């Protein structure tokens, strides 16, 4: 039966689909998988996310294949009926989270860190044959000095609430059968049974807010789109993750693509769309491949296409690529890009829910938002609302990077104090004992300064201190990071990414950047701070889209908490952290210099003198403070400060 949405321009009021029928197929797959899986004796899960791959996890995977073949232990690379009894399952998973300790290998719950291909024979002999752990590959808890057997013993994991990430680092992302066997696509069945209105009601009960940064209630976005007249509607997944220093969406798409696909199908059902589009960043080829593979597998099983589960619901998914434009994260710009044009935003209203892709009602959701959907539908909105706070329910994934001891992908229940995230999950700063600030929200966000470390992380609290939740960048900064320089870095990004359509963003951003460059170059003038604030206010009020409106945030936020740093740059022409090269001096430490001459060769001003194999020195009057000598020295003999 075709979709019942009338061709006439009527507002859909009742559920347009029938309950799911012919669901035996999923049950069969589940049963078959379980039967095959019973034959598996042990499972070795190797992290295959980009971070671990870059650290050599593919070599580890290959070493397992060759070494296992040598030992004669039966193993399989996927779960099929042809798996032998008592064989090993060698599985490549998505991100397991503890990226800084990669490559990660999980053998039946025992987590091995920093595994090299050379370690594989010992793992096979000790763990697989003798059933004992390889002690030296276990993570050592720096506080107790004890080795940790599994994730439950590791402080990095203990304080987290891993819902989305649990499956992400466990399942084989390329095996739809395993996803189904773990309850996958049962949420879709349930969604068809409760109908679009039931789905929206469940989403409302969950209180899920957009994880892309804005925090708009997801159910409301869906209902607004659903209410619109007309049969042609579009569901769009924004996977154009452009925030520098954040990679949550990439990891979710690579690690559990089916959760996002299932979310997209349920969302399409809820808003009354027949077509969904993934807009994926072109720099993420592995993510795109896995999603495509997932879509193909769904089509084969009838989870996509016509008359899904005999319900009358027709739905198709396709992938479109972004092309490296940060502004395309803005909904109307993303739509322009999908229409094959420059990704330039347009004024709202009309909102995409009224007039989106090709002028049709469209809903756009971020990857993490959609990944939450199957869990909410399966377990209920109330279950989800049980995590987090009243106004910011649920869990949130962050990419913790920068100067913390532990870095990686984390998931916490919202409402957790910043200091717990930084000091307990993150293990504190890399050097020293104090974290200077945490940056959230990327180029649209701001800093959480030391004085706000007790604050619980919620949408509201972050907004109150002048930052935003953002998509999940969580960048830890220490005493060596200059706040003026960071503000300049983010503004430089926004100026480069400004599409140029509206004057406040195009001109305002440029002018602010010129002032900041002047300040960090030692040319700051009295009144610069006021000028920054004036231009920033104009940009915030008058820019066309979110990019321009939020571009001044990093400057305003650092000004609010670190104004003294700005003043020191301007008034004393000094950078307290030594980060701004033009505001520091360079000096060669005689006792550390071996006289290799590397600095002398690198110096473009020819102000370094000294004989080979004897200590060199810098002429401060000729020095142009370019920092080349500092960069060239292999012996830490050049001091900057």
């Amino acid at each position, binding site marked *: 039966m075709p979709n019942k949405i009338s061709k006439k321009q009527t507002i859909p009021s009742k559920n347009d689909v029938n309950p799911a029928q012919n669901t035996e197929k999923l049950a069969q797959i589940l049963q078959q998988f379980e039967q095959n899986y019973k034959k598996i004796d042990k499972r070795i899960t190797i992290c295959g996310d*980009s*971070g671990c791959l*870059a*650290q050599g996890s593919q070599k580890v995977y290959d070493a397992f294949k060759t070494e296992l073949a040598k030992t004669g232990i039966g193993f399989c690379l996927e779960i099929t009926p042809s798996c032998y009894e008592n064989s090993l399952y060698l599985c490549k998973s998505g991100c397991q989270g503890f*990226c*800084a300790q*990669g490559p990660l290998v999980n053998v039946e719950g025992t987590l091995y860190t920093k595994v090299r291909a050379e370690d594989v024979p010992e793992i096979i002999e000790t763990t697989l044959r003798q059933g004992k752990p390889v002690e030296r590959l276990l993570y050592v808890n720096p506080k107790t000095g004890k080795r940790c057997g599994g994730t439950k013993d590791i402080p990095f994991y203990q304080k987290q609430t891993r819902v989305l990430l649990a499956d992400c680092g466990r399942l084989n992302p390329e095996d739809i059968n395993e996803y189904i066997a773990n309850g996958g696509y049962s949420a879709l069945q349930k969604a068809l049974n409760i109908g679009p209105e039931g789905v929206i009601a469940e989403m409302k009960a969950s209180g899920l807010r957009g994880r892309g940064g804005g925090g708009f209630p997801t159910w409301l976005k869906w209902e607004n789109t659903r209410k619109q007249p007309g049969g042609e509607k579009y569901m769009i997944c924004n996977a154009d*993750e*452009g*925030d*520098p*220093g*954040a*990679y949550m969406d*990439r*990891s979710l798409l690579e690690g559990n693509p089916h959760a996002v696909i299932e979310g997209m199908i349920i969302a399409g059902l809820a808003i009354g769309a027949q077509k969904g589009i993934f807009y994926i960043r*072109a*720099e*993420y080829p592995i993510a795109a491949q896995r999603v495509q593979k997932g879509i193909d597998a769904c089509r084969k099983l009838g989870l996509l296409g016509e008359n899904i589960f005999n319900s009358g619901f027709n739905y198709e998914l396709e992938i*479109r*690529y*972004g*092309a*490296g*434009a*940060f502004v395309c994260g803005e909904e109307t710009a993303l739509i322009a*890009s*999908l*229409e*094959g*044009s*420059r*990704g330039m935003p347009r004024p709202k209203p009309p909102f995409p829910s009224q007039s989106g892709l*090709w002028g049709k009602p469209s809903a756009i959701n971020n990857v993490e938002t959609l990944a939450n959907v199957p869990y909410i539908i399966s377990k209920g909105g109330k279950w989800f609302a049980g995590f987090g706070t009243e106004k910011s329910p649920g869990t949130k994934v962050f*990419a913790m*990077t*920068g*100067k913390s001891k532990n*870095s*990686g992908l984390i998931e916490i229940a919202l409402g957790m104090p910043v200091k717990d995230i930084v000091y307990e999950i993150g293990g504190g700063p890399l050097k020293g004992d104090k974290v200077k600030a945490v*940056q959230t929200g*990327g180029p649209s966000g701001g800093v959480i300064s030391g004085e706000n470390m007790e604050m619980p992380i919620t949408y509201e609290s972050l907004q109150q201190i002048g930052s935003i939740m953002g998509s999940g*960048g969580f*960048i830890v*900064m220490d005493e060596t*990071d200059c706040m003026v320089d*960071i503000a300049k*870095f*983010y503004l430089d*990004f926004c100026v480069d990414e400004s*599409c140029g359509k509206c004057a406040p963003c195009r001109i305002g951003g440029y002018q602010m950047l010129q002032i900041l460059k002047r300040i960090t170059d030692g040319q700051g003038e009295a009144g610069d701070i006021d000028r920054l604030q004036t231009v920033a206010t104009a940009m915030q009020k008058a820019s066309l889209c979110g990019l321009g409106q939020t571009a001044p945030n990093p400057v305003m936020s650092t000004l609010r908490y670190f104004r003294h740093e700005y003043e020191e740059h301007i008034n004393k022409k000094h950078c307290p952290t030594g980060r701004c090269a033009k505001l520091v001096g360079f000096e060669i430490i005689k006792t550390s210099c071996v006289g290799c001459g*590397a600095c002398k060769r*690198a110096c473009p001003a020819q102000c370094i003198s000294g004989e080979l194999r004897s200590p060199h020195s810098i002429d401060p009057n000729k020095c142009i403070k*370019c*920092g*080349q000598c*500092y*960069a*060239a020295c*292999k012996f830490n003999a050049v001091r900057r400060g």
Partner: protein
Amino acid sequence: MSNSSNEELNSIVDKWKDVKGSLVMMLHAVQDKFGYVPRSAAMEISSRAKIPLAKIYEVLTFYHFFKLTAPAKHQIAVCTGTACYLKGSQELIKALETELGVSAGQTTADGRFSVTALRCLGCCVLAPVMTVNGKIHGHVKPADIPSILREISKGEEQNAQ
């Protein structure tokens, strides 16, 4: 353009030309094949898919991902995402400038090396990160640059033998 690449181009255009709003996808496919979008290819798309050349260049020049010139033999890219920036990616770019004489966004005169500043590779835990012909190098120090470049030249010589 040779006959075979012309055929490839035709098949790309034929695949996408009737799909609404597919210009970006078409240009992606062209860049995938040739490593960049040659002017001749842009003109061919314009005439076959009936898209004004101005519109094609409007799109090509808007998005950072599209390249209008042939890539260098060895492509070096330094990640300048926030984590890498904090951990010294600017110093890597400076060191590359010292060694190769070109700054980010440029190619050496002999066409052997190009240096690009990338936004974020999402490998933040390895910061600072740079890629050489797509291969990721993590925790790079400015002092490592000469040896990384030597490694490339050595590989080149071995290939020549």
